[in-house]
């Protein structure tokens, strides 16, 4: 039986302690960059990806939707597949998890 591979991404330590905005023109710590430079490579290489949200100043809706909803809208990931492979951890703000699940489920692929 093949062992499942896993990768952990600690956003505050590895990406930014203050994520902000959707696009590069909003800031360097934007959701598009996080998705393209961290999430996508991890999803391509590993079976499961653990995202740790603690330690950052806070997460705005724009950043979260672009990062995670964008996986469905821009890259065609299936919501069910993402929810199976992504493990979201947030002890400081547990409501983030349900919010992100909502963005993944409500996103529709762009034509």
């Amino acid at each position, binding site marked *: 039986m093949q062992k499942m591979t896993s990768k952990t991404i600690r956003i505050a330590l590895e990406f930014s302690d*203050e994520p*902000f*905005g959707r696009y590069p*023109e*909003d*800031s360097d*710590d934007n959701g598009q960059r996080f998705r393209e430079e961290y999430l996508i490579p991890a999803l391509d290489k590993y079976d499961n990806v653990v995202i740790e949200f603690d330690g950052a*100043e*806070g*997460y*705005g*809706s*724009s950043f979260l*939707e672009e990062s995670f*909803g964008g996986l469905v*809208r821009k890259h065609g990931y299936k919501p069910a597949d993402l929810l199976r492979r992504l493990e979201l951890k947030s002890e*400081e*703000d547990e409501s983030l998890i349900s919010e992100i699940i*909502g*963005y993944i489920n*409500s*996103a*529709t692929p762009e034509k």
Partner: protein
Amino acid sequence: MKRLSPDKKIRLISLSRERFEHDLARRGRHYDPARRLIDVRPSSSQKNRQYIEIEVPEILCLDSAYEQTALFFKKIRDTTTTTTVTVRLHFEDCKSIKPTALLLLLSEVHRARLSRGQYALTGTYPKDHALLRRMCATGFFKLLGIKSPVEAPKTFPLEYIPFQSSNRRAKHTTKEMREGLLGEKIQMQTSARKQLQRGVAEAMLNAITHAYPSGKVRPQALQNRWWMCGHYHLPSKKVWIMFCDLGVGIPRTLPRTYPIERIRGVLNILPGITPDDGEMVYAAMQLGRSRTEQSHRGKGLKDLLFFIDQAGAGDLQIFSNRGYYQYHGDGTEVRETLPVPIGGTLIKWSVPLNKIVIPDAENDIKDN
């Protein structure tokens, strides 16, 4: 060494003074021996400078004197954008400027100076000492290039802290404001800290991406500009966080994100009827919160509410053009269309301090 005679001593002192005064005169200054002061002799350009004098109303407050306050800001705006003459604001008889009005005043003054330089606008000191102290604490006179005549007290939480402004995203702004206002001993709860950051980040993102017409604002320093200030309201023991931009306002930017039919739908109004500003701001808040809304954009406005929801108390106020929206900690909402536009968007969070700080920190909160 030979002693000087008294006459000779007097003669030498007189010569020395003559030389001193001659040197001062050469540099455009003169000495007043009666007051023993050196006065600056105004240059010809300053002597001939004309001013447009504007009296600051006795009270500037968006809650109790909205129309008077908004009209005053409109007067500053209209005057500084249509004339090259220096505008002088007379604060002598002003008795009260509430924190939200003070932030708007700061932003209008700052905009005038960024647009037309240091001679665009100047002012006089208020006679009311408490008002003077508050204006100094927010950095108002520093912005005008005038020396702050008094120092603000350093008892935390501070009543006022210097305002912040930028025309791009500024990292750690909320953290610096929070720490500047509360000091080291009074710590905000982690959850409150995160929700405040969320709200401010959304307001900032809105200012730099939606509020201003893209690339059309001159000078460049004004494009996407926002201003922010914090205040500890001692009588109610509440923390006020205020954020504003001088852009086109939510009523004008909302139709860019949502079709008008969708806006009418959430307001339950008939086709063909144009929502007024108060309805537009209210609609923006409803659409931002809707989980059934198809669009992936426009979700950020709900971020503004989380700081209030987390505390379970306090309120959020939004003034945008002529629209007014208020959200209370118990979930109730108020909307209104005001008689005069505010000239941008102003957001104010007001939360009881004891609802957002770590319980032990309450012992460090002193009454000023």
